[in-house]
């Protein structure tokens, strides 16, 4: 099949060179030793380099601000009307850090160990260790910016516990931690914009990455207000463009969250790693009908005090309040006595699906389980429960019309986060020199499953404390001050952009972009969601290809390309979700094992837990674009575990 008009450069390489650049030796000192050996750019020379940061979420805003503080010229690009809108803002629960303020025996090692284990041994140990190390600096930085974290009466910082951990290491600001952290980063970015160190481009969507002699040297973007296409040159490009959870159509992601920049980079030769590692969050408000446009997350922190249950009787019709205690099945507490309601997300999600598939689900659709605060309210009182969860209870009531103070919440899993992303080395550089990927856009730290409160940690770690140290290794080797926007690479990229827009506008078919997106999402959710089979994935692969064919022949976009045209924007993003969807299904099909969030029904232990195959799949799978009409090519980066020996995850 062919996607009209879009071809990457002719010298395509599908056999990727993937050098992780992991430091060797003692892991505890590896980051320190690496920094010491890293190239520094002198203050006088920094101002000669220009860096483009795409995205202004936690990773993008923190990177842009920090690089500007160092003296680099920074361009920050966002498709939003303001850098404060990025979807990081919606994160509720918290951010992990190995501060051990609770004296509960937490440590860098502990956070490292939990993250490697939680990721089911599919992440690079060295990256994860560095993440755990810098986690503590993040909290210090955010507090200095004025982020109003929750505090105890003595004035010191408060913590809560989160899934997948036996310590309380999560810092939070009511149920709005992401908002407060993002506003901290946004304010740091604003300070640099005001000072002139960062030039901010809002309403601007990056539609191509520009390669010059194989190096990323700029972008082509479209101004969403005017439709104008512009070229921007730089010495390096950082993508901090988030995840691809909206491939499912219904997800907890914001409506505009998309994978366009990542897929553009992939089509330019960047490897895309582990696309099938997608996180389905266990606690979201269930779907209420066909009109549904997105799903709303209810923070995992609710599982600290809420108890998950279903009726013991199949097809129960009585309301929750009339079901006596001994007719309730607190199945997480029953199956996982040591972690109980705090098992990791993948485990909790699959358990909910299993109960509902077996006929025990609640609510009109039968796809829901109860999350009950009755016991917590009795034990702690309204005030203490309100202190912890009031904003979440209010949010639930606004959406459903039910009050969690009176009746248990109904929840069901939904697509939430994507562990897969652009492959990066220890410097956070993709296999395209000069092209970096930060935050959720890369694949680096969470393996096959991310633990709660670790996304905010990783986004800010990458932006504040990793890229400012590692980007110098590339820049030092590059000649400063690339600015030739008339270079052939720019012409070629701009041609691709214009051609794609004209193609989308000119199909003149009968179906809207949203209609295609919904159908794609349903295929992926049904066959490449919480549990997957070889048969289902093979079907899905065919269906996605057919749907893409139909998309390029029957799409309808009205309006013009000069000026705000939200249908055109959506159409371009849905086109890229089609490519991503295909890659995701292929990845799930060829990873013939279960691990973390990737659950292949063929591979499970007798008790239904995911069964890894370390002999054959202890690696990252990195996909290379091989032209339209060809399936992408699978490459691997093998993983070695010197510190946390792979074991079967057990939360019992």
């Amino acid at each position, binding site marked *: 099949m062919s996607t009209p008009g879009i071809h990457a450069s002719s010298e395509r390489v599908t056999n990727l060179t993937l050098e992780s650049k992991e430091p060797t030796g003692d892991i505890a000192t590896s980051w320190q030793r690496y920094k010491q050996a890293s190239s520094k750019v002198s203050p006088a020379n920094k101002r000669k380099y220009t860096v483009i940061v795409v995205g202004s979420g936690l990773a993008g805003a923190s990177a842009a*601000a920090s690089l500007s*503080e160092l003296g680099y010229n920074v361009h920050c690009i966002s498709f*939003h*009307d*303001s850098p*404060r*809108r990025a*979807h990081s*803002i919606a994160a509720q629960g918290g951010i992990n850090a190995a501060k051990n*303020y609770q004296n509960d025996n937490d440590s860098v090692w502990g956070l490292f160990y939990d993250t490697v284990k939680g990721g089911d041994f599919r992440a690079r140990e060295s990256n994860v260790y560095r993440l755990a190390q810098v986690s503590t*600096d993040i*909290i*210090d*930085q955010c507090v*200095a*910016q*004025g982020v*109003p*974290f929750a*505090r*105890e009466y*003595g*004035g*010191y*910082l408060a913590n809560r516990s989160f899934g997948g951990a036996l310590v309380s290491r999560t810092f939070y600001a*009511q149920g*709005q931690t*992401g*908002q*407060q952290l993002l*506003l901290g980063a946004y*304010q740091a970015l*604003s*300070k640099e914009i005001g000072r002139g160190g960062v030039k*901010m481009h*809002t309403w601007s969507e990056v539609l191509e990455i520009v390669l010059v002699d194989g190096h990323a040297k700029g972008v082509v973007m479209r101004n969403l*207000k005017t439709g104008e296409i512009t070229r921007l040159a730089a010495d390096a490009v950082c993508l901090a463009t988030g995840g691809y959870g909206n491939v499912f159509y219904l997800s907890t992601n*914001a*409506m*505009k969250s998309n994978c366009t920049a990542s897929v553009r980079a992939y089509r330019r030769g960047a490897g895309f790693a582990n696309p099938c590692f997608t996180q389905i969050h266990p606690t979201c408000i269930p779907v209420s*009908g066909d*009109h*549904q446009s*997105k799903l*709303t*997350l209810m923070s995992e922190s609710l599982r600290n005090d809420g108890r998950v249950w279903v009726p013991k009787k199949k097809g129960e019709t009585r309301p929750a309040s009339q079901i006596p205690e001994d007719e309730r099945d607190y199945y997480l507490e029953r199956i996982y006595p040591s972690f109980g309601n705090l098992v990791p997300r993948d485990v909790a999600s699959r358990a909910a699906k299993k109960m509902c598939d077996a006929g025990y689900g609640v609510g009109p659709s039968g796809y829901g389980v109860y999350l009950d605060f009755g016991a917590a309210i009795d034990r702690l009182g309204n005030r203490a429960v309100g202190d912890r969860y009031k904003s979440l209870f209010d*949010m639930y009531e606004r*959406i459903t*019309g039910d009050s969690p103070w009176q009746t248990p919440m109904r929840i069901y899993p939904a697509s939430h986060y994507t562990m897969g992303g652009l492959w990066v080395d220890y410097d956070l550089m993709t296999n395209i020199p000069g092209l970096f990927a930060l935050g959720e856009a890369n694949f680096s730290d969470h393996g096959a499953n991310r633990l709660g409160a670790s996304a905010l940690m990783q986004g800010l770690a990458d932006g504040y*404390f990793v890229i*400012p140290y590692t980007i110098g290794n590339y820049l030092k080797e590059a000649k400063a001050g690339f600015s030739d926007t008339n270079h052939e690479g720019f012409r070629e990229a701009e041609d691709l952009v214009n051609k794609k827009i004209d193609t989308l506008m000119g199909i003149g078919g009968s179906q*809207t972009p*949203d*209609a295609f997106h919904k159908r794609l999402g349903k295929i992926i959710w049904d066959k490449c969601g919480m549990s997957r089979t070889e048969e289902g994935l093979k079907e899905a692969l065919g269906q996605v290809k057919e749907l893409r064919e139909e998309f390029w022949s029957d799409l*309808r976009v*009205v*309006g013009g390309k000069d*000026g*705000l045209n939200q*249908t055109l924007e959506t159409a371009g993003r849905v086109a890229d979700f089609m490519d991503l969807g295909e890659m995701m299904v292929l990845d799930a099909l060829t990873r013939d094992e279960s691990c973390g969030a990737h659950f292949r029904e063929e591979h499970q232990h007798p008790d239904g837990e995911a069964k890894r195959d370390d002999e054959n799949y202890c690696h990252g799978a990195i996909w290379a674009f091989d032209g339209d009409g060809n399936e992408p090519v699978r490459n691997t980066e093998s993983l070695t575990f010197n510190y946390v020996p792979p074991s079967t995850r057990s939360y019992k």
Partner: protein
Amino acid sequence: MKITLNVWRQAGPQAKGAFEKHQVDVIPEMSFLEMLDVLNEQLLGDGKEPFAYDHDCREGICGTCGAVVNGVPHGPGDKVTLCQVHMRSFKDGDELWLEPFRASAFPIVKDLVVDRSSFDRIIQAGGFVDVRTGAAQDANNLPISKPVADEAFDYAACIGCGACVAACPNAAAMLFMGAKVSHLGLLPQGQPERDQRALNMLSQADAEGFGSCTNHGECSAACPKGVPMKAIMRMNADVVRAALTETGTE
């Protein structure tokens, strides 16, 4: 249920706008924006151009959405953004009038979409703590009493949606600025730049064409996060304090 919608149609910043009437079938579980999705899919199906409207997270936190519904920014309901309004707030046969947030500092881009970059420029003028990455001390070296931290949080909850400006007869941005000035001014981290912050933000707001506060209180009533009028008192106090102590003069 059937709803009659009069939606503001305006092709571009300079174009003349007008209301356009449409009928939509909805169910009570739908959110307000899902109703607009239905309308837009309907229009697209007929080969007509959909209405442009801004939205993103659809859970009341990103601050992107917002329109005036029957004269009220973000529509009916206490402390909600437009995306959190559900159709169960209306009844069959209701007629609604939808228009963009109106203020000269928020120029209309198209239909219901406005440009609120003036808010960003106000923050860039001083709505931050000037601390470099890496310069921070250990977080627990700075105890902050819980009531102070909680109050700072309440001001920090502002989502920058602009409903306060749309609701204000003077199109003032005082509640927006007051929220940031209060958030940072309550905390020890915000003290060194407290005076400059208030003066610089205020002077930027004047340059953007926002009006002055004449104590109507409509801003706080429209605020989806319930930022109180006290934010404006704090802002005024900081401006006066800065003017009197000279440390804030540029």
